[in-house]
């Protein structure tokens, strides 16, 4: 499978601070997604971003597929941003695009 590395593993921020999460992957991929796992365990879709840059409110993401990395930017962080952020890359295999996950970045935003 594809190796996916996320950094940093843990991040503690003061409310209002900005942060950048990084995702490196070991091979060419068909697509890339960023998720936020809420305290109840559900994975919430943040971005579907095989390449280029997208923005959604205080969050934005950039994927440079040729260099095999993606970045997630969180600006003006809020306590509700706390949780684990996962990067997942997909490779086409036997009729489906299977996702390979990184081990996540645990973000804690303190008031």
């Amino acid at each position, binding site marked *: 499978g594809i190796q996916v590395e996320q950094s940093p593993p843990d991040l503690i921020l003061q409310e209002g601070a900005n942060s950048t999460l990084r995702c490196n992957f070991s091979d060419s991929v068909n*697509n890339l997604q960023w*998720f936020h796992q809420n305290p109840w365990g559900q994975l919430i879709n943040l971005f579907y971003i095989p390449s280029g840059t997208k923005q959604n409110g205080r969050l934005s993401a950039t994927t440079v597929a040729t260099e095999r990395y993606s970045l997630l930017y969180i600006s003006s962080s809020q306590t509700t941003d706390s949780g684990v952020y996962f990067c*997942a890359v997909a490779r086409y295999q036997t*009729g489906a*695009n299977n996702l390979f996950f990184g081990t996540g970045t645990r973000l804690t935003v303190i008031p």
Partner: protein
Amino acid sequence: DVKVTQSSRYLVKRTGEKVFLECVQDMDHENMFWYRQDPGLGLRLIYFSYDVKMKEKGDIPEGYSVSREKKERFSLILESASTNQTSMYLCASSLWGTDKPTENTEAFFGQGTRLTVV
């Protein structure tokens, strides 16, 4: 909105029991997946299905089987539950599989099932 629904949020079963985890999606997606999530190991693919009655093994299929009799439903079966199958189980679906980067293959997840085997 895409909705992927797992039948139980929490489940406690005894060792040796046959366990069924159900997942239903309402967006006519071709592909469905089962993952398990464990601390320190991340999310790992158990099985996936790209069409009705079609299934493929993922990275950790041992001790599991699956069933997809209808397009909207994908079941994970633990034939004889063991304590090392205590985990968080996550179901996902996506429209279809393709290696064309211009096609949207975004995956959506259910709320997860926390299974404890005692």
